[in-house]
């Protein structure tokens, strides 16, 4: 690895660097993000499609450079197996797994929060009895992961992993600790906004998705190439939870609400269509 990263050099060629070795400045990365967003806005203004998912080719996120397909996705009409999802049940998930603050002998340090919401499909139908998995850093921004080298304290009373099954209305609730931002190696002085990772299943396996939930008003939003890989501001906002005082409980925990929408089920309309013939 060559260290060519001093002074005020331009890092327009930084694509060639090992992503982990990039010492591009925040200004450089922010300028790259602005360039992509400006081009997107111009395209939409001249009639281009609104994008609601992240770009998978997003150079400001250095690790994406060699890890995104360059060909467009191939359209597939879903077949039998793709119209269903694995079934999860009480056997798979214990009710207590949705409380991340009771997994050890003591109370974890930090701000106790409740995150609740609904999982819906693209038609607005609740996704029932499906698995929701979360993982997150602790109140100091540290993960219980052997490769997390951030010199912030591990909390012996917090692992940061939760699971739940959605209810009849697609609802889920987790009790946890508010995670802190943490530094990463995308560029010099890079910090992730505080977030909780969410993993979701729908009724069709084609709805499978993993994402991140953020907290309102985070000052790091504008600087973060992962969040900003979603070029459309309205789409980005869909990842930000809402503070909800009705979820907050007296002398116990503050509350956030976050609903998740999966893509549309193909099973429902394909089955109906078959019934029509």
């Amino acid at each position, binding site marked *: 690895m060559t260290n060519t990263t001093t002074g005020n050099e331009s890092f327009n060629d930084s694509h060639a660097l090992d992503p982990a070795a990039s010492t591009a400045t925040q200004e450089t990365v922010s300028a790259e993000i602005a360039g992509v967003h400006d081009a997107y806005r111009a395209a939409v203004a001249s009639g281009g499609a609104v994008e609601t998912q992240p770009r998978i080719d997003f150079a400001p996120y250095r690790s994406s450079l060699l890890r995104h*397909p*360059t*060909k467009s996705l191939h359209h597939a009409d879903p077949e039998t197996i793709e119209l269903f999802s694995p079934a999860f049940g009480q056997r798979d998930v214990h009710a207590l797994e949705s409380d991340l603050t009771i997994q050890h002998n003591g109370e974890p340090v930090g701000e106790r929060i409740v995150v609740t919401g609904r999982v819906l499909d693209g038609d607005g139908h609740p996704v029932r009895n499906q698995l929701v998995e979360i993982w997150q850093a602790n109140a100091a921004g540290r993960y219980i*992961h052997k490769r997390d080298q951030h010199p912030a304290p591990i909390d012996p009373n917090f692992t940061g992993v939760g699971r739940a099954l959605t209810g009849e209305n697609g609802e889920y609730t987790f009790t946890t600790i508010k995670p802190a931002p943490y530094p990463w190696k995308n560029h010099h002085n890079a910090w992730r906004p505080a977030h909780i990772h969410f993993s979701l299943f729908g009724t069709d396996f084609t709805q499978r*998705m993993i*994402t991140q939930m953020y907290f309102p008003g985070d000052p790091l939003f504008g600087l973060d190439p992962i969040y900003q890989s979603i070029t459309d501001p309205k789409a980005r906002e869909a990842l930000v939870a809402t503070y909800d005082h009705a979820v907050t409980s007296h002398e116990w925990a503050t509350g956030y609400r976050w609903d998740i929408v999966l893509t549309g089920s*193909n099973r429902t309309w394909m089955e109906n269509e078959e019934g029509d013939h």
Partner: protein
Amino acid sequence: MAPAPQVKLTATPGQTIGPFYGYALPYERDNELVNPSRTGAVRLHGTVYDGDGTVIPDALLEIWQADEDGNVVAQAGSLVRDGYTFTGFGRTAVDNEGNYTFTTLNPGATDAGKAPFIMLTVFARGLLNRLFTRIYLPEDTAALAADPLLASLDAADRGTLIATREADGALRFDVHLQGESETAFLSYPRS
């Protein structure tokens, strides 16, 4: 088939799985859809590569498939396996050299004449949204030739979706996120 109806709600954007899922998503026997000693157990394995042909050591793969008779099962127990119930779902994090292994069954054709395949989902640090593809079994060449998706692809793309059967019965399927051998990844209606 009529075109898929429009969705009413915009799907929430995906985000990368990041580097730190390793203590959260993997679970005991996550990659063993069946016990390795079971009759008919098949090893499905391969390696995940980036656009430089370098192995990716931090990808997570999931498979979802029918049973040997082509039936889609609806059995709980994927996360807490009893060693006997086939749930059709498996998950595995690749090792430090990008390799993965599932122990599973050869899926049967879900309808007569259909080419059997296993659904594969790829997550990785650096990959901003999940990718879907299909792992086709190589044997039924007539069914493969008649498969609508495969027929819509050029020969090179088609080849990336058909697993290789090894001498010991194992299925080999490598995943290339980018590059000359880039795997054909799929999109579905209503997304």
